[in-house]
């Protein structure tokens, strides 16, 4: 406690020096700084960019972890990183990539595109939106602090008990995991809730459910999955937290606890989670493919129902991750058949994508390349998925590199390709300029080839008997060369990722020659009807939607813009607020305190949270109005 006070005073001291001490100007100086605007924003477009930066930041960590593991596996019996250290790498790689890369990057795209696609001025709860982002960041940073203080989580992203309990993982690693994920999970749940409310309530006049672009649809279903999928995880994390921090014995076998409960809780969340991260990617693909084939999506209605069906079945199949737990042939068979059933709606999607391109005029932009490269990759991941669904066969595949290959095919081939496609596609809408296409193609091919080089061979590594999460193998296993090929591929993927970064830098430098205009891709959906980047209020007048692919429809009618559904009037906007970041800071402090068993600090953090909640609830904040004159001026300026 005493150290804490000293640190606090010291921190205040430093802040005072840096800011020139407290005086009346300090606050105004603070407020006029450009950073302040980003820290307090509630604008969905800015929050989208923040999510993208956050996800990209953690991607660096996750990527380095992956490369270190592949380097260790280059030689048999290598001694580069072994034992617990390797376990930390694999645990953090998985956790980071799922929770702190895939999810935020998808939230980035959702924030950027969904409100624009449905003709809304913002999301339903802008405050919650900002809070969701800051909580994600707080959770991610907290978990990565493990690298510096006390050790990172080391029990896999699945965090099975009992290895995750104090007895077998005595450091603070798992505490970081448990608390970091709870904090980030709060944020994600709020995000999901927010998008559900937004899509249900904020659609522009005429935008019926069956006129929504597929990306909005898939985001909608993914949000519903978040809402129902995260609570079981939170419950499980709570149990582990009580076991670790307060000596509860939920999972203590000697006292009648049952570790298998954790596995169920985890996978009841975990399987929907893979659909949470892959469905929005499906949506991106659908929009991009239809855009660049210049055709309406083939079988739109069946696409929508396939999405709903996948979302629904996604909750019925979790136990296929647990065939070897010993649940008996009956349970295994039921879950096997449910799993196979998911292949049907997924198949519908694949064929619909191909027949969207059939008869179209395909332009191979980088966004389209990623969408197109996604199809065969995802199909391969899908067929190995069916193979894994057969329990007796799964007894052989389970927890081997075959599984590693399978889920990277769906998570990289699906989610990551989808995210990259979406970033290339919506970049002009986010920033007003396109990314460089030549570099983009390099980026695609290097990443794509590197990916297949890394993971195709891993199917065979698994079939030759190498389990996953192994830090080494022996010469006699006969898989040295395979592992080396895989490592080379991984390095190539790293180069591909760097090319993307290079593209961002180069394009930013040349942004004046890459200016996009409102509609750089000859788009079909509503977001392309407004300027790039859009004004704060998005739509000066809410548009009247008259069909699916409404913007394309208007263009075909010869219209230059959407027909407005309301007269030009002043627009009500929410105020920026620092409360979300303060509240997240409270959670962060509280989490850190609990990790180090400094319960006073834990409580202190929660006090900060409660106080900000109080302020938020009782201090009226009515937002502000943008007057008609100003709207007209923005319109002319754009």
């Amino acid at each position, binding site marked *: 406690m005493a150290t804490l006070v000293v640190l606090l005073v010291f921190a205040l001291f430093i802040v005072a020096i840096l800011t020139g001490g407290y005086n009346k100007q300090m606050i105004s100086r603070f407020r006029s700084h450009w950073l302040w605007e980003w820290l307090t924003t509630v604008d969905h477009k800015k929050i989208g960019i923040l999510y993208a930066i956050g996800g990209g930041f953690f991607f660096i960590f996750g990527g380095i972890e992956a490369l270190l593991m592949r380097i260790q596996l280059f030689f048999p019996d290598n001694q580069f990183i*072994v*034992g*617990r250290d390797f*376990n930390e790498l694999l645990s953090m790689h998985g956790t980071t990539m799922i929770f702190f890369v895939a999810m935020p990057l998808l939230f980035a795209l959702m924030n950027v595109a969904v409100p624009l696609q449905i003709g809304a001025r913002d999301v339903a709860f802008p405050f919650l939106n900002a809070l969701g982002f800051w909580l994600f960041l707080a959770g991610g940073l907290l978990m990565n602090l493990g690298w510096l203080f006390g050790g990172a989580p080391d*029990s*896999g992203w699945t965090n*099975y008990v009992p290895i995750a309990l104090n007895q*077998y993982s005595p450091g603070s690693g798992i505490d970081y995991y448990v608390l970091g994920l709870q904090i980030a999970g709060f944020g994600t749940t709020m995000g999901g809730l927010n998008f559900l409310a937004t899509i249900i309530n904020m659609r522009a006049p005429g935008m019926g459910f069956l006129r929504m672009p597929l990306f909005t649809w898939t985001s909608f279903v993914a949000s519903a999955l978040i809402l129902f999928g995260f609570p079981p995880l939170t419950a499980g994390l709570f149990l582990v937290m009580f076991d670790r921090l307060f000596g509860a014995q939920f999972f203590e*076998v000697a006292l009648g606890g049952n570790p*298998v409960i954790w596995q169920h809780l985890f996978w009841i969340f975990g399987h929907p989670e893979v659909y949470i991260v892959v469905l929005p990617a499906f949506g991106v693909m659908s929009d991009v493919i239809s855009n660049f084939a*210049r*055709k*309406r999506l*083939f*079988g*739109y*209605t*069946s696409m929508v129902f396939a999405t709903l069906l996948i979302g629904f079945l996604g909750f019925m199949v979790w136990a296929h991750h647990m065939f*070897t*737990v*010993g649940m008996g*042939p009956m349970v295994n*068979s039921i879950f*096997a*058949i449910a799993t*196979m*059933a998911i292949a049907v709606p997924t198949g519908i999607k694949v*064929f619909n994508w*191909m027949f969207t391109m*059939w*008869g179209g*005029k*395909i*332009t191979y932009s980088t966004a389209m390349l990623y969408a197109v490269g996604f199809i*065969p990759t995802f*199909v391969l991941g899908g*067929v190995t998925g*069916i*193979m894994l669904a*057969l*329990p*007796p*066969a799964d*007894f*052989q595949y*389970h*927890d*081997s590199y075959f599984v590693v290959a399978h889920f990277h095919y769906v998570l990289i081939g699906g989610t990551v390709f989808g995210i990259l496609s979406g970033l290339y596609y919506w970049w002009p809408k986010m920033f007003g300029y396109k990314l460089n296409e030549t570099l983009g193609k390099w980026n695609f091919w290097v990443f794509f080839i590197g990916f297949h080089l890394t993971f195709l061979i891993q199917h*065979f590594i*698994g*079939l*030759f*008997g190498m*389990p996953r*999460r192994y830090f*080494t193998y022996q010469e006699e*296993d*006969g*898989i040295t060369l395979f592992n080396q090929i895989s490592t080379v591929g991984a390095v190539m993927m790293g180069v591909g990722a760097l090319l993307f970064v290079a593209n961002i830098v180069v394009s930013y430098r040349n942004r004046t020659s890459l200016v996009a205009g409102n509609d750089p891709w000859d788009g079909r959906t509503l977001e392309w009807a407004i300027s790039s980047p859009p004004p704060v209020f998005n739509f000066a007048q809410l548009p009247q939607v008259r069909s699916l692919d409404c913007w394309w429809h208007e263009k*075909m009618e010869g219209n230059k813009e959407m027909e407005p559904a309301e007269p030009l009037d002043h627009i009500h906007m929410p105020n920026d607020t620092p409360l979300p970041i303060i509240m997240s800071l409270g959670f962060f402090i509280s989490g850190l305190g609990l990790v180090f068993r400094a319960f006073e600090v834990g409580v202190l953090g929660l006090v900060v949270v409660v106080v900000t909640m109080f302020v938020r609830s009782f201090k009226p904040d009515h937002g502000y109005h943008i007057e008609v004159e100003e709207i007209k001026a923005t319109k002319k300026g754009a």
Partner: protein
Amino acid sequence: MSRGKPIGRLFLFFAMFALLLTGCEKPLSNVLDPQGKIGKEQLELINLSVYIMIFVCVIVFAIFFYVLLRFRRKPGDNAIPKQVEGSLMLETLWIVIPIILLVILAIPTVMTTFSQAKEAPKTASEDFIRVKATGHQFWWEFEYPDYKIRTSQELHIPVGKKVYVEVTSDDVVHAFWVPGLAGKVDASPGRINRIPIDADKPGIYKGRCAELCGASHALMNFQVVAEKPSEFEKWAKKRQKPKSEPQTVEAKDGKKVFAQNCMSCHAIDGTKLKMKGDKAPNLTGFAKRNKIGGLLDNNEKNLDRWLKNPEKVKPGTYMPGFSHLNKKDLSSLKTYLKSLK
């Protein structure tokens, strides 16, 4: 299900190819070339699924590449393609065909799932043997209840007989897997899972732990030694009456060192030691084992390495190092260990 065979051969070809490239003798841990009936049944299912999936992939890829090449937009082509809404016929087609394929796959799947889940008969018989396998961080213990033998790291089984393995764990979740024989099952604390395995051919098969269980998860190997039934019986007899009493003076000294340092964790059957530790591998017949700790070749140099610093070999192991023993004690200890037959 002979339909699956060609694919199996294709895989086998890959397997051979890999062996050629790495120039290695006999891993015997190949899922695609299992040496037991149960593994072969599982392989048949794998083959059937691969067969169907290749069919699917061929169709999808054919359409895919055709579309990509045929419908690319030529420069300057600004024509608007026909905006097709969908096609009931086509869409029904790709709902119905996958369902048919899945039914073809589901029936044998469910049948095999149930047939392989049959449990061991209650009474002992000549046709099968029973083994209890217990996972520990980071070693395996094997107990033969019908023979009253307890051993570790090395699982001896008779060729041609079904072996019903009862798998459990003493600490965290492990998984018992012998890729070259059959699939795996979890070893969870407080649970007993049963799986059958069998081998058609004598040989040594690599066993592995397949569920992350801590620092040395990757090193928790064991060996399955499949022998002719007569030889298995011989081995079992020997293990029931082991030669564990020291014969030479040096070995006698070694036993004393053992009693002072190791007895609390390790047991040796057939000796008059004061206690029989059960926290560590039973060392009866240690000299006959192929591997130390399931990992290192069993020779003088490796035994020395292991005794002096086991942490270096298996990070996180509970076995303490004994580099503090003086040279004489250490060498007599090793002599004693090497006399355990």
